[in-house]
């Protein structure tokens, strides 16, 4: 009898398992049924779109408002909004792709464009963009090119999304601090040389209340986001032009990295060693204890409430004599599996290229306008903070570059550079030694990424 019981439980298990499998099978059948039903849907039926994005509270509020407006303008279309925090977004999106339930419209990082196109996740929206009333030439070409791909090179070919925004990274300075110290304000058209930059920082780094502790600093940059500017303006880069070779062993690269580390270890214009964590320097900037700090458009709503005046200037220029910085972007794309691709594309264009949508987003101070004509009017208004908004546009038009990690199939090789960098920042390893030892490791990962890309194309 005991044996019999055992048999029954196994039987039960099998039945359950079969039921589960059958359940899966039938549910997918149902899906395909509803698919065909929907494609033949009458115009009266509600079309449900899912939009997944990320952003801070201000940004979420702004986007929710714009989407509400979109729904009003497009009767019959309902948009379900899914938001996540910034650090969870990539995981959630990739899980949804692996699970074959990609949202109709979603943000994606331009670095992932090739992977998503090669594997058929993103829909080609070229036809919708061409048919629509939007003027593609009125959107920053740099931004649109992020989302063009012809099957081998990005930057040209069909459109697989539009930029949610472009994110120029400019340098901000504490105007009030300069005025108090009686130092001439920085020139908004002429970047500091590296030597000048150190000098002005040294003048501003001091103990203001006489307690023997330095409480006002020149700057305090996070290497992850600021090193690019110094490297590029010194004529070096992470990658060669073919995007297949890691070029950090260039002496000019080492020079820039050394300069960056020396700000802390030699010139002492930043808070003490081992404080590259932005939390500290960001808080100091917000409290008005720091002369220079990078500013992105997404900071504008927060910086409205700063207890001091701030404005924008170009990044300090290295041996090329020209400022350099990165220009980020986040794309909004349409799922290739979306049932309502044309409506989804419509939503993308509404969010990125329509006057109505853009006006609301810009008013919320979460981004700079995507539309060139609107951006010009916006920048010309110097009555709102920061006065020199023009600097953002110059980054977009003239000297901004994409982050090197987004130029390859994945960013593993690039991230390794920053994973291992702490000893250089702490002054324990020289920049020259570091780039020499790190280059082969990064090259190995880059080779792997290239190999992966080849495979994904098959």
């Amino acid at each position, binding site marked *: 009898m005991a044996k019999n019981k055992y048999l029954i*439980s196994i039987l039960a298990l099998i039945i359950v398992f079969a039921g589960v499998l059958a359940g899966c099978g039938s549910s997918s059948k149902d899906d395909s049924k509803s698919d065909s039903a929907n494609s033949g849907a009458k115009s009266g039926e509600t079309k449900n779109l899912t939009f997944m994005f990320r952003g801070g509270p201000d940004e979420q509020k702004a986007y929710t408002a714009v989407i509400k407006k979109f729904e009003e303008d497009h009767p019959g279309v309902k948009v379900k909004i899914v938001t996540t925090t910034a650090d969870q977004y990539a995981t959630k999106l990739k899980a949804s792709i692996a699970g074959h339930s990609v949202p109709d419209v979603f943000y994606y990082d331009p670095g992932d464009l090739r992977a998503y196109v090669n594997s058929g996740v993103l829909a080609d929206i070229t036809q919708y963009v061409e048919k629509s009333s939007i003027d593609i030439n009125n959107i920053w070409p740099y931004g649109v090119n992020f989302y063009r791909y012809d099957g081998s090179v990005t930057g040209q070919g069909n459109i697989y999304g539009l930029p949610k925004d472009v994110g120029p990274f400019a340098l901000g300075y504490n105007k009030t601090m300069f005025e108090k110290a009686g130092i001439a304000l920085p020139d908004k058209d002429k970047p500091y040389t590296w030597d000048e930059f150190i000098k002005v920082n040294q003048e501003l780094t001091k103990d203001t209340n006489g307690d023997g502790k330095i409480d006002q600093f020149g700057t305090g940059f996070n290497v992850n986001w600021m090193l690019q500017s110094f490297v590029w303006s010194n004529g070096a880069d992470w990658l060669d032009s073919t995007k297949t070779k890691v070029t950090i062993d260039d002496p000019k690269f080492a020079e820039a990295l050394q300069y960056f580390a020396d700000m802390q270890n030699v010139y002492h214009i930043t808070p003490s060693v081992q404080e590259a964590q932005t939390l*500290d320097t960001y808080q100091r900037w917000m409290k008005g204890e720091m002369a220079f700090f990078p500013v992105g458009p997404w900071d504008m709503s927060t910086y409205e409430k700063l207890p001091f005046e701030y404005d924008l200037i170009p990044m300090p220029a290295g041996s090329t004599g020209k400022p350099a910085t990165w220009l980020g972007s986040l794309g909004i794309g349409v799922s290739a599996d979306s049932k309502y691709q044309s409506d989804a594309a419509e939503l993308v264009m509404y969010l990125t290229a329509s006057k109505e949508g853009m006006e609301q987003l810009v008013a919320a101070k979460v981004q700079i306008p995507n539309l060139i004509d609107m951006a010009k009017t916006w920048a010309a208004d110097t009555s709102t903070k920061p006065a020199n908004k023009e600097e953002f546009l110059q980054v977009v038009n003239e000297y901004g570059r994409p982050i090197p990690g987004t130029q390859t199939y994945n960013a593993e090789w690039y991230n390794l550079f920053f994973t291992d960098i702490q000893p250089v920042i702490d002054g324990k390893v020289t920049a020259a030694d570091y780039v020499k030892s790190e280059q082969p490791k990064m090259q190995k990962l880059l080779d792997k990424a290239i190999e992966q890309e080849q495979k994904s194309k098959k």
Partner: protein
Amino acid sequence: MPTKSKLYRKEMIYGYLFLAPPVIGMLLFTLYPMLYSIYGSFTDWDGLGQMNFIGLDNYKDLFSDELFHKAMFNTFFMMIGIPIGLVLALLLAMGLNRGIPGTTTFRVIYYVPVISSLAAISILWQWAYNGDYGLVNQFLDLFGIKGPNWLANKHTVKPAIMIMAIWKGLGYSMLLYLAALQSVSRSYYEAAELDGANGFQTFRAITWPMVKPVTFFIVVTSIIGGSQIFTEINIMTSTGGPEYSSASAVFYMWQKAFGNFQLGYSSAMAVLLALFIFIVTLVQFKFNEKSSGDLD
């Protein structure tokens, strides 16, 4: 075969019906993904579409992957916290078992971290460990010690995370020990007292063997949990710490899978980690079988 009553069969069916939900859940959400992951570990799956069989290539690559070795080392290193937590929990439980006033209050205090969200706790500790304004360094400052920037220093980041993990798990282990201690029959201690045993002897010969099943349980679950440490690391050191000094095996897996389109490779790591946990647990069970029954 004896015939069974209708009632018996009916009850049996109900029984299986009640069993069904967890069993289905296990099959669907544990067994199926697990088998899929094992299969995936032999492929170059990128999580998007492509999934070609490549045999043992992923496993071969793992042997020469420095970051994987580093991540595994970090994971093991942070397990040093397990015995420390165990000893502290037992000491606390023994202290609270003496019936000192305020036992309930202390129990609550020690148990609060256990029921708090790990993500929230990680954020709080991240602040506490801040080099400039952090509570930890402010406290050390009272004694004239200049604390490091805990999470930005490769030598202190692992101990920092361990301390937090111990603090978080202490209440749980303590409660288990407390329950075990309270179930030890008084008569053993009385007999020991009559025999003139001192405190240490009592502990070694009675308390320790009596709470051994609990110790075993805590060690096994802690090692399994410790192997899978991720949330703390992801939140407190979002890039895996300076020079990858705090990255755990699961953290590395997650980066590879969701950051770099290498789900196949990650699956191989997951399989190795699962094998490791399985073997360690098996060894522990064998070991426990051998040494149990001391008191008989």
